[in-house]
């Protein structure tokens, strides 16, 4: 009997140690990245965040163009992806009959399984020509008075980056908001229908009202994914560190500057600067993730045992 107890104890300790690995990994990540970015931080301080000149040869490093490119491209992505994903999920979970719901949900899930590199390949050879030949001339012709749609049409640039990101975050936003909508009690809907509400009024009153927080969580998770997305954006955004209000102009994001320049970084300071940029991205995504998980967890407690990606 005693032997069994010892084995059980060893079993518990072993699994605990392995479970703690994730915590250790996250702590080590934070520690190592801070340590590695110290030289850059000591040299440039907080001015690093507001400088706009990026000239590695002259050892001038300003991160603002990358921060700008990351935020703006992600905002474009949210602007496009949020309404369409929510519309689609509401249709699938509240209105569509079973024979549409099943296959379409499966297709949207497949969208999440496509690797970033394939989106990038498609972006280069399909999306960019379409943008250059049709979409950008159209926008310039009819909305050219807005500062966002001025300049040459390259195809690649901020607009292409934003659009490819919007396609990529659709599955994130829709799968989580689907879970949130499903956690709305059926009685809420029945109550609305019983007082004579139409389908849309039921959705507005019972479903959306009840799940605001969770949907916000889903949107923040989508934002987190957009901010950190690397390959697809690198392949279509043009990779040019400048700040321009026009969406036709090439831009650069934090993730893509790391992807492009890390292996070429010759000096220790250069590496340290790139790690510091990576650290900024890491901290932003951690904060967003923590907020989003708390929001989603708070609405649907049943998500506790569920894998969210």
């Amino acid at each position: 009997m005693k032997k069994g107890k010892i084995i059980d104890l060893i079993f518990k300790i072993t699994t605990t140690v392995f479970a703690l690995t994730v915590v250790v990994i996250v702590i080590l990540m934070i520690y190592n990245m801070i340590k590695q970015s110290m030289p850059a931080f000591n040299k440039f301080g907080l001015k690093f965040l507001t400088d706009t000149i990026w000239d590695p040869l002259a050892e001038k490093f300003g991160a603002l163009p990358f921060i700008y490119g990351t935020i703006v491209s992600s905002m474009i992505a949210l602007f496009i992806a949020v309404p369409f994903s929510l519309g689609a999920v509401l249709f699938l979970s509240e209105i569509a009959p079973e024979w549409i719901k099943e296959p379409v949900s499966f297709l949207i899930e497949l969208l999440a399984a496509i690797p970033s590199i394939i989106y990038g390949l498609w972006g280069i050879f399909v999306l960019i020509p379409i943008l250059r030949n049709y979409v950008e001339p159209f926008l310039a012709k009819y909305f050219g008075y807005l500062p966002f749609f001025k300049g040459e049409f390259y195809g690649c640039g901020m607009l292409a980056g934003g659009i490819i990101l919007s396609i990529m975050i659709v599955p994130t936003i829709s799968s989580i908001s689907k879970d949130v909508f499903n956690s709305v009690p059926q009685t809420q809907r029945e109550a609305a229908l019983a007082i004579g509400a139409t389908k849309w009024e039921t959705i507005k009153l019972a479903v959306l009202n009840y799940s605001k927080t969770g949907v916000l969580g889903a949107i923040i998770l989508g934002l987190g994914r957009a901010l950190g997305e690397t390959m697809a954006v690198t392949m279509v955004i043009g990779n040019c560190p400048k700040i321009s209000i026009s969406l036709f102009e090439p831009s650069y994001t934090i993730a893509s500057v790391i992807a492009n320049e890390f292996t070429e970084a010759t000096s220790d300071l250069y590496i340290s600067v790139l790690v510091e940029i990576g650290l900024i991205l890491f901290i932003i995504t951690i904060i967003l993730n923590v907020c989003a998980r708390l929001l989603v967890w708070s609405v649907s407690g049943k998500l506790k045992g569920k894998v969210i990606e």
Partner: protein
Amino acid sequence: MNNIRRKIINNIMILIMIISTLIILVPLINIFIYVFLKGISSININFFTKLPMPVGEPNGGMANAIVGSIILIILSSMWAIPVGILGGIYLAEFGNNKLGTIIRFTADVLSGVPSIVIGIFAYIVIVLPMKNFSAISGAFALGIIMIPTIMRTTEEMINLVPHTLREASLALGITRFRTTISIVLKTALNGIITGIILSVARISGETAPLLFTAFGNRFWHEGINKPIAALPLQIFAYAISPYEDWHKQAWAGALVLIAMIFLASFISRRILKSKYKIER
């Protein structure tokens, strides 16, 4: 009058929802069609058997990259699967406390960390001390990406095992350890395998964390402490090159990659479906 207005609004909103669903499906279907058509027209037997050729020479392939990707997947699975499964067992069996919540939360947060940041981490802790790019550092980065998925799926699947099964075993005086291994894990095995397949599918397409860890290699691999080729890395290099011939190879690579990933998600879906049927 008012009722008619409400009905019209209702129909307009439903129409908008249907249109958004269709719009979401357009890029997806477009991507499938392009990858399939462009890939099928450039794929041939050389692609699977030959090394990459210099520009202009025909009959090059990506054999080394396919082998490289398989090696990377095996190396990362070797450490990530045990960590993920044992961690998942902890969460399901002993994790009903504060520590469990912290670990669960950290795992969820870790799965949201951009893969390029994980690549930087692997670079700092493995590439810098070893002073060269290597297969190990790539597998280290990919493993970190796998762990949260495997851990949370394992937990979820173990939680699906009926409590009565566990209690029946414990009531016979069998130890917790034996119960978990022989009863609980055996019952949850299908689901756990699904989680593993999904995480392998995910890392087989990962490119960003390999850029400065596995680095890529135009030749056969020379050992796990040397740079190694990977399919996504090769697709990336070819896609941004200016050569028509290399673009074709990139599409062929994309087709192979996407076929592997979809096969994996299809299999795991089948496994899960059959399991849930028994459940109900």
